[in-house]
C-alpha cells in the first residue's frame, strides 16, 4: 500500500506521514485471515524514509536523580520512533479492551485476583514456607536471597559447583533488577538471552524498555542495524522475518551448548511448589528443558496459594498484556528431569520492606502484564528507557522509588494523573493514587527540585486565598492575550512546553457571574 492509498485520517493527525497503513507481513491463520494474536500490529516505516537514529534512554549517573523529562524530550524529537511507539502500544491497549469486553465476568476476575493477591501478601511468610516444603519434597533445591547481590552470588555458586560456563536465560525482570547479566559477565559466565526482544536489547547493550515487549521502542531499521553489527546480517535487509530467522539460527547453537538454563517466574504455587512461566516463544521451555542444569529466579511476591487460582490469573494475564486469550506457552515446572538438578531462588530485594509501607504495599500485587504502560500517554510518548530504571511506566513510578528514593525521585512526576493505568490494572492496584501519594512523600522530604518546590509554594499561597487566585487568573489571562510568543513559550514557563497555551477568555466565569447573576439574584 502506498501513501496515496491512505485515507485523509491516516495521513494527517493520527498517523505520522512516514508511517504507512498496516502491512501484510504477519502470519495467516487456517482461513487465510491475518493473525494478530501475539503482539501488536505494526505500521512499518517506508523503506525510502530518511533514517532516524534511535533515541537513547535516560542518562544514568550513579545515585543522581534521573532526568526523565530530558530523555523524554529526546524521544519526542525523534518523530518516527515516537509515533511508531505510540501507535503500536495503543494498538495493544485496544486489543486488551476487546479481550476484556469478551468476558462477562472480567470485573469479577479483577476483584478476585486482587483479593487473592492481598490475602497471599498478608500471609506471605506462611505461603513461602509451604512453597519451600513442597518444592523440597519434589526434589528441588530452594535458596533464599535477601537482595540482588545475594541472588547473583547464589546462582554463581550453583554454576561453579557444576563447572558451568554458559547460561541461557528466559526473560526475567527480577534478574534485570539484580543486575544479573553484568555480574555474570564480570565472572566470565556467558549469559545468553533467549527472548527475541531481550536478545535484541542484549546485543545492543541496552536494558529492556517494556516488561512484555523489551524492544518495542526500536524500529526494524534499528534491529537491522544491531544485527548487522553483531550477528553479521545484511545491513540493507530490514525484513522482520529475515531478522527473526537470523536470530533463531544464531541463538539455537548457544542454547544447545549451554551448561545451565535460568527462567523467571510469573506465578509460584505454594500448594505444589510449582513455578509457572508464560511466554509466546517457548524460550522458558527451552531454557528449562534443554541444558543439564535448571534454575528459577522467583520474586517472593509471585506466590499464589493453589493451582485453582491460576484459573483466575492466567485468564487475566495475556488478555491484559497483549489482548490474546493466553500466551502460546503456559509452562509449569514442578520437579527436576531425571538425572538433573533443579534450583529455585526466592528473592526479596526490598519486597518485605515494601510490605510495611502503608500506602505502597499493594503495588506488590503487580503481575507484570504491562497494561498500565500501554495505556499511559506519558509512557507511549517518552519510551520506557527514559525512566532510567528496570520498571518503567506507571507501575515503575510507584515501585522504583521503593528501591531508591533519591535516584527515582523525579519519576512520580512523569504522569498526567489521568487514572487510565488504574482502570486497566488486572489486579486493581490504585496506581495513580499511589503516584500522588509519592509526590506528597517526596515533597515533604524535600526530594524535588528547587524550581518545582518554589512553584508549588507559590501555587499553594495563591490557591489558598480566593482573592489572590482571582487576581492571578486575571493577570495571567490578560498577559496571555497581549504577550508576544517568545515571552510565553520560553524555558521559564514549563506549561508552554510541547503544548499551545489556551486562548484566554475576555472575562472569567466568576467575573461574569458577579456581573450578571449576583445582581439579578439580589433583585429577585
Amino acid at each position, binding site marked *: 500500500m502506498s501513501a496515496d492509498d491512505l485515507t485523509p485520517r491516516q495521513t494527517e493527525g493520527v498517523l505520522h506521514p512516514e508511517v504507512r497503513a498496516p502491512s501484510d*507481513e504477519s*502470519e495467516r491463520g487456517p482461513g487465510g485471515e491475518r*493473525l494478530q*494474536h*501475539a*503482539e501488536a*500490529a505494526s505500521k*512499518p516505516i517506508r523503506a525510502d524514509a530518511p533514517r532516524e537514529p534511535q533515541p537513547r534512554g535516560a542518562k544514568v549517573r550513579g545515585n543522581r536523580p534521573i532526568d526523565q523529562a530530558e530523555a523524554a524530550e529526546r524521544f519526542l524529537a525523534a518523530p518516527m520512533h515516537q509515533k*511508531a511507539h505510540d501507535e*503500536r502500544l495503543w*494498538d495493544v491497549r485496544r486489543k486488551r479492551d476487546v479481550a476484556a469486553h469478551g468476558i462477562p465476568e472480567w470485573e469479577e476476575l479483577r476483584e*478476585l485476583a486482587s483479593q487473592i493477591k492481598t*490475602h497471599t501478601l498478608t500471609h*506471605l511468610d506462611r505461603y*513461602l514456607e509451604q512453597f519451600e516444603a513442597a518444592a523440597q519434597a519434589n526434589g528441588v533445591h530452594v535458596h*533464599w536471597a*535477601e537482595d540482588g547481590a545475594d541472588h547473583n552470588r547464589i546462582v554463581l555458586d550453583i554454576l561453579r559447583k557444576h563447572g558451568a560456563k554458559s547460561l541461557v536465560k528466559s526473560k526475567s525482570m527480577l534478574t534485570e533488577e539484580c543486575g544479573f547479566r553484568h555480574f555474570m559477565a564480570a565472572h566470565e559466565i556467558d549469559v545468553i538471552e533467549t*527472548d*527475541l*526482544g531481550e536478545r535484541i536489547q542484549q546485543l545492543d547493550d541496552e536494558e529492556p524498555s517494556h516488561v512484555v515487549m*523489551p*524492544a518495542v521502542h*526500536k*524500529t*526494524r531499521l534499528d*534491529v537491522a542495524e544491531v544485527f548487522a553489527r553483531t550477528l553479521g546480517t545484511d545491513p540493507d535487509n530490514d525484513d*522482520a522475518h529475515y*531478522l*527473526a530467522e537470523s536470530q533463531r539460527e544464531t541463538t539455537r547453537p548457544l542454547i*544447545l551448548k549451554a551448561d545451565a538454563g535460568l527462567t523467571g517466574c510469573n506465578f509460584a504455587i505454594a*500448594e*505444589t511448589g*510449582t513455578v509457572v512461566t508464560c511466554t*509466546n516463544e*517457548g*524460550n522458558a*521451555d*527451552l531454557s*528449562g*528443558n*534443554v541444558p543439564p542444569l535448571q534454575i528459577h529466579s522467583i520474586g517472593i511476591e509471585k506466590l499464589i496459594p493453589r493451582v*485453582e487460582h*491460576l*484459573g483466575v490469573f*492466567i485468564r487475566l494475564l495475556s488478555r491484559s498484556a497483549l489482548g490474546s*486469550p*493466553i*500466551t*502460546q*506457552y*503456559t*509452562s509449569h515446572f*514442578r*520437579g527436576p*528431569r531425571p538425572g538433573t538438578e533443579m534450583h529455585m531462588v526466592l528473592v*526479596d530485594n526490598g519486597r*518485605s520492606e515494601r510490605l*510495611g509501607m*502503608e500506602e505502597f*504495599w499493594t503495588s506488590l500485587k503487580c503481575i507484570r502484564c504491562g497494561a498500565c504502560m500501554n495505556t499511559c500517554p506519558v509512557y507511549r510518548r517518552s519510551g520506557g528507557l527514559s525512566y532510567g530504571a528496570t520498571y518503567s511506566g506507571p507501575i515503575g513510578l510507584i515501585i522504583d522509588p521503593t528501591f531508591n528514593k533519591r535516584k527515582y525521585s523525579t519519576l512520580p512526576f512523569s504522569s498526567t494523573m489521568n487514572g487510565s493505568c488504574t482502570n486497566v490494572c488486572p489486579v486493581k492496584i490504585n496506581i495513580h493514587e499511589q503516584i500522588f501519594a509519592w509526590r506528597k512523600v517526596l515533597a515533604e522530604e524535600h526530594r524535588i527540585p528547587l524550581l518545582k518546590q518554589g512553584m508549588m509554594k507559590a501555587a499553594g499561597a495563591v490557591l489558598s486565598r480566593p482573592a489572590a487566585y482571582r487576581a492571578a487568573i486575571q493577570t495571567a489571562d490578560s498577559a496571555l492575550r497581549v504577550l508576544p510568543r517568545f515571552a510565553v513559550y520560553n524555558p521559564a514557563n514549563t506549561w508552554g512546553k510541547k503544548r499551545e497555551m489556551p486562548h484566554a477568555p475576555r472575562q472569567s466565569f466568576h467575573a461574569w457571574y458577579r456581573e450578571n447573576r449576583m445582581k439579578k439574584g439580589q433583585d429577585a
Partner: protein
Amino acid sequence: MSARETILARLRANRPAGDFPLPDVPRFPPLVGDDLVAEFTERLGKMGGRVERAGSPSDPFAPVRSRLDGAAVIASAVPEFSGNRDLAAVAMPTEVNDVDVAVVRARFGVAETGSVLFTQDDLIVNAVAYLAQHLIVLLDPADILVNVQAAYKRPDFGQAAYAVLHTGPSATADIEGVLIHGAQGVRSLTVLLLQRKKQAA
C-alpha cells in the same frame, strides 16, 4: 540469622493490619458453545495452530501426510505412529535438535483458548516439543475441556514434574509487531483429532 529467617521475620513484622480472607473462586459459565470441537478449532486457529480430523481408520494420518513425507527425521511419542527416531533412547535433550516433525498426544484440550496440555510422560523428551521444527498433536475430541478453569481442576498439575499448555506454534512480534511463527520453538502446530486407543483390559 540466615537470609530465610531475616526475610520471614521482616514479612511478619511488616504484615499490613487487617483481615484479608482468601476468596472462594466461583465456577464461571463457559465462554464457549456446546460444540467443543468447533470452538477449540476456531480458537486454536486464531492462535496460529491448525486442526485436522483424522483420516480413514486405515490411514488416520492422511491429513498430515504431506508434512510427514517431507520430513527426514520424525520422532514419535505415540503408539499410533512410528517415526525413525526413538525418543526412549535419547540420553541428552540436545540429541533431538535435528528432528523435523515430532508426533505427540495431548492429555487434554481447552476450548476457551485452543490449548493442549502435555506432561513429561506425554513428551518422553520435553525438549522435543521445542527443538523439533514442526509438531503434530493427537487429541481425542472427548478430551476437550470447556475452559481454563476446568483445566486447573485436573490433577495433572499437582502430579507432573513438568506440565505445559501449548496454544499454537512458537510466536513472536518483537520486531515492529510483525507476527512471526517459529521464533525459537516449533514453526507449526497441527492438532489431529484422533480417538485415544482403548487401554487393553
